[in-house]
């Protein structure tokens, strides 16, 4: 059988990974199944739930809706890359303080989306937070506490402006 794999380099959470994947492997499957970072979850695998939200070159994306081969040499940040020096990220602290998860399945995606939402400057009100977090579904219905957590974290984090900001 001919080898149809491509060599792809992904910079994930600051670490360089050289992998070989078929073109049909999504970025989500590459992260979970090939690189072994299972923090990013597969909820719907069709861009509708946001559970697979990761950051790509500073922007939040659905990892299920893109192919690994399209991201050669790109920088990806997953939920495993949020905490620094063994300390929880402020957004993670806010989610804990506000009890912003129940089963936890959507939580990784909510965190990645929320961090970007703050960096983009879209947390001026609860209404704005709800609109700009609308790409992340929560079947447990923890929305009220998620919005509160994002509000809290935003209050203590200045927006970096635009979408190219770092994971603040």
């Amino acid at each position, binding site marked *: 059988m001919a080898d149809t794999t491509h060599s792809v380099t992904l910079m994930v959470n600051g670490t360089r990974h050289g992998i070989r994947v078929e073109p049909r492997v999504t970025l989500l499957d590459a992260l979970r199944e090939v690189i072994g970072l299972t923090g990013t979850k597969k909820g719907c695998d069709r861009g509708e739930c946001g559970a697979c939200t990761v950051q*790509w070159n500073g922007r939040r994306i659905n990892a299920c809706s893109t192919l690994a081969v399209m991201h050669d040499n790109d920088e990806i940040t997953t939920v495993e890359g949020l905490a620094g020096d063994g300390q929880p990220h402020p957004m993670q602290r806010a989610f804990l303080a506000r009890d912003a998860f129940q089963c936890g399945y959507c939580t990784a995606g909510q965190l990645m989306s929320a961090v970007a939402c703050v960096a983009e400057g879209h947390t001026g009100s609860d209404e704005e937070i709800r609109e700009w977090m609308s790409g992340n579904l929560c079947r447990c219905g923890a929305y009220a506490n998620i919005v509160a957590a994002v509000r809290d974290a935003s209050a203590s984090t200045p927006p970096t402006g635009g979408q190219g900001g770092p994971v603040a």
Partner: protein
Amino acid sequence: MHNFAYVRATDPLHAVSVLRREAGARLIAGGTDLLNLMKDGIEHPDPIVDISRLPLTGIERRPEGLRIGALARMSDVAADPGTRQGYPAITQALELSASPQLRTMATMGGNLVQRTRCPYFRADQDLPCNKRRPGSGCAALDRGHPATALFGAGRHCAATHPSDLAVALTALDATVTVLGPTGERVVALERLHRLPGQRPHRDTVLEHHEMITRIDIPASLLAPMSCFIKVRERASYAFALVSVAAAVVTDGPVIRAAALALGGVAPRPWRLRVAENALMGVRLEPAAMRAAIEPALAEARAHAGNAYKIELIKRAVLRALNAAGRQEAP
């Protein structure tokens, strides 16, 4: 997904030359629609030609108008202050589309060529759908599905086009520049999407070997006086039941000029030129405007499933005209 070959385009001409050579080739930019079509077995491209890194991402305000590269991401255009100030309907349409994550991935050109949301077309099993499998029938028409078109439908297909951006661009007289192996041509947005007619499987007038490279929106008095509204079943992150792009220039209390296009109700954005003409000289007030637009909507063809949209269209149009003319939130 089926296995397929992957080619990264080195430049636009390389991309269209692969399309020309390979009957099964498809372009991928953001991939947010294409990958779902592939996962559901609706399309089986091979090879996939990745154009996502081509330098067609500019957003330029020029004296002649706004010029946007086809590969500009929806989120970047939505965040562009010049677009928001000069062409607010475009910004509003973009921000009401999809989700924040999808908007950072999806491109302007890809948004225009996304495919219908008709549930029979999109089913993950093979149901009667002349767009997906020519000659297999149209279950949506047979069953009077509410998502079928009120304008421009054919006997073989009544699918609607889901792009919000296309509606705003149609109202503002935009054009797309299309590249083929032998050169470029310009297509008015209003004529980009086909009516189903006898060949519902052809969504647009683009040939297989063509690629949209940019979008141009002409400067006008109407453009800064534009708005876009979207009526949908959820507060966010849903396609339109009915949408309206409107632009209104007034002279005191009276409409001088108007532009109007509907979304969610036709195979392409539905420009309402008869209504635009009828609105000239009319006061920017609900009763007067309603009287002006009603005759223009007489061409709507509804059945029990989608008849509710007729009144919805009228109210949405009135709301959009008012918001556009006053540049207020709708």
